[in-house]
């Protein structure tokens, strides 16, 4: 049952072939069996999940009209506040915090009858690309437990890849949904900026952050996307417009006559051979389905990584000022006579990890007088050029594509002491965030040299998220025919699994 798609599970629930309690228990059993190795979860809320499942079963029995994914269990990235459930954003500074409110994503999921099983591991405050920066230890890639699942939403991606949950939610500031989806062989979507409420999403870089869905198929991902998106008065940047028809697009999957733009700057040199090979093959598949492949030039993308690593740290140095040891979270050094400033400094030292400190200091530097124009100011101008490059490219193509990440999953510890090497892994995903548009990663196969999953990235203009699903579904269906079985059937069995 746990290896079915969410769409199949929803169908079985609707037909009365199973119950949400049964489905939830099966996933909790799977978590108990394999999460000791994968370590996708920071907190499993078994009692809460079963209570939600029981409630949705009762509502179904009464004949209530339910959302298409009511009763389906889900894993939630620990960056989203859930009332009364430990929420840490992967940081020691929030250890033990029980939010007194629900984020809008959580209240929306609850209203839709989705069963939230627990909170997943992540790089601290979503700063990282491997989940190794978590204050609670790394998550391990189900494809190879010596490797990272990517990040920052590595726990959510690993949970879906390891069949611990059919659906999960992540957040994507520079690629944190798409890159772990690529490295674990699943589908992940970063919706258009403003499509999903950020209320209750613990902020890293507010102009870039966006929550989004993970699933094992394009359709499953669309089902969650359509439920979690929508306007929210509690988020001033929330877009007040109808949610794009992503489920319908995922069901159609027709690319005949569509123009697909390959971004010259996001391939070739610096990309692992097996990644490039699977990407090129996928392009051929799309061409064979009737799409027209064109090349587009986005010269400013060469500077996207540099701009991102100024803008995001600058915003984070301001956002994380709220962790001041006064109203919630950790407080240390509060001895008689200690000043508020001394307590604040001691707490932030004890509570923040290395990468968070590194980015706060970098942001503080980039925003300081005398350097502001040269660093933060220039980065904001590069951002304008990137938006212009996209606008021009989208006059030539309906969607743009690239490999999601330059490499497959790397070894735990391989890049953790080399921040620049880690940052380079985000080179293909970052432009989407800077422009506020939407992007998807879906599996393109396994790299020949290491048999690890490769991600294919699709990008579409703001609020044209349905195009991602249309192209994604077409490619997914064609690749499935070619492979004969879903990619996850090639992943090794985890020990302890039934």
């Amino acid at each position, binding site marked *: 049952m746990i290896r079915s798609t969410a769409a199949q599970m929803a169908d079985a629930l609707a037909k009365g072939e199973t119950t949400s309690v049964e489905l939830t228990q099966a996933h909790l059993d799977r978590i108990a069996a394999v999460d000791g190795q994968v370590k996708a979860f920071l907190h499993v809320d078994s009692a809460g999940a079963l209570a939600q499942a029981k409630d949705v079963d009762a509502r179904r029995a009464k004949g209530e009209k339910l959302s298409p994914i009511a009763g389906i269990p889900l894993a939630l990235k620990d960056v989203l506040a859930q009332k009364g459930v430990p929420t840490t954003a992967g940081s020691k500074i929030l250890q033990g915090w029980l939010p007194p409110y629900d984020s809008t994503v959580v209240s929306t999921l609850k209203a839709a009858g989705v069963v939230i099983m627990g909170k997943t591991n992540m790089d601290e405050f979503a700063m990282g690309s491997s989940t190794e920066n978590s204050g609670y230890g790394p998550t391990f890639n189900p494809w190879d437990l010596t490797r990272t699942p990517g990040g920052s939403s590595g726990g959510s991606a690993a949970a879906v890849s390891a069949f611990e949950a059919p659906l999960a939610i992540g957040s994507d500031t520079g690629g944190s949904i798409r890159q772990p989806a690529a490295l674990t062989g699943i589908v992940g979507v970063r919706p258009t900026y403003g499509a999903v409420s950020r209320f209750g999403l613990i902020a890293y870089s507010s102009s870039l952050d966006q929550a989004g869905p993970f699933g094992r198929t394009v359709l499953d991902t669309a089902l969650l996307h359509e439920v979690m998106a929508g306007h929210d008065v509690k988020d001033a940047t929330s877009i007040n417009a109808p949610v794009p028809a992503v489920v319908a697009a995922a069901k159609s999957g027709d690319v005949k006559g569509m123009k697909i733009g390959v971004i010259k700057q996001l391939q070739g040199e610096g990309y692992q051979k097996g990644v490039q090979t699977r990407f090129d093959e996928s392009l051929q598949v799309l061409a064979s389905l009737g799409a027209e492949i064109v090349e587009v030039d986005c010269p400013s993308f060469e*500077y996207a990584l540099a701009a991102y690593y100024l803008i995001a740290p600058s915003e984070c140095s301001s956002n994380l000022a709220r962790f001041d040891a006064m109203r919630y979270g950790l407080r240390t050094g509060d001895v008689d006579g200690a000043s*508020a400033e001394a307590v604040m400094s001691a707490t932030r030292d004890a509570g923040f990890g290395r990468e968070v*400190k590194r980015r706060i200091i970098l942001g503080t530097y980039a925003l300081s007088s005398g350097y502001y124009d040269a660093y933060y100011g220039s980065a904001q101008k590069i951002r304008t050029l990137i938006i212009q490059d996209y606008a021009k490219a989208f006059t030539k193509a309906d969607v743009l594509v690239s490999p999601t990440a330059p490499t497959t999953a790397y070894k735990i510890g391989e890049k953790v002491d080399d921040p620049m090497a880690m940052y380079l892994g985000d080179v293909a995903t970052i432009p989407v965030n800077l422009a506020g548009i939407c992007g998807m990663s879906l599996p393109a196969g396994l790299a020949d040299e290491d048999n690890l999953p490769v991600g294919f990235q699709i990008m579409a203009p703001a609020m044209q998220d349905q195009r991602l699903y249309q192209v994604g579904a077409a490619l997914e269906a064609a690749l499935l025919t070619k492979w004969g079985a879903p990619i996850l059937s090639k992943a090794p069995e985890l020990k302890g699994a039934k």
Partner: protein
Amino acid sequence: MSSLSRDDVAKLAGLARIEMTEAELVELSSQFGLILDAVARVQEMDLSGVKATSHPQPLENIARPDVVLPSLSPEDALSGAPAQEESRFRVPQILGEAE
């Protein structure tokens, strides 16, 4: 090659209210050269006449009617407080010398 000295990092850490050990200051200052070189690439392009973008959307102020809506109870608001006293957050001394 850009660089930040140990003292530069110490000053920034002070501004950011993060106490740091000597080892952390030295490590960060040694890593900053490479990171600053990489991010300084934003200065390579000719950016004269290019407008800055702070946000992907045109932002405007949104006002709501001035009516009272449900909000957190004092108990809920204080539920995560490291210390509290008489339904208020108790914080370390902010002004003046210790008694």
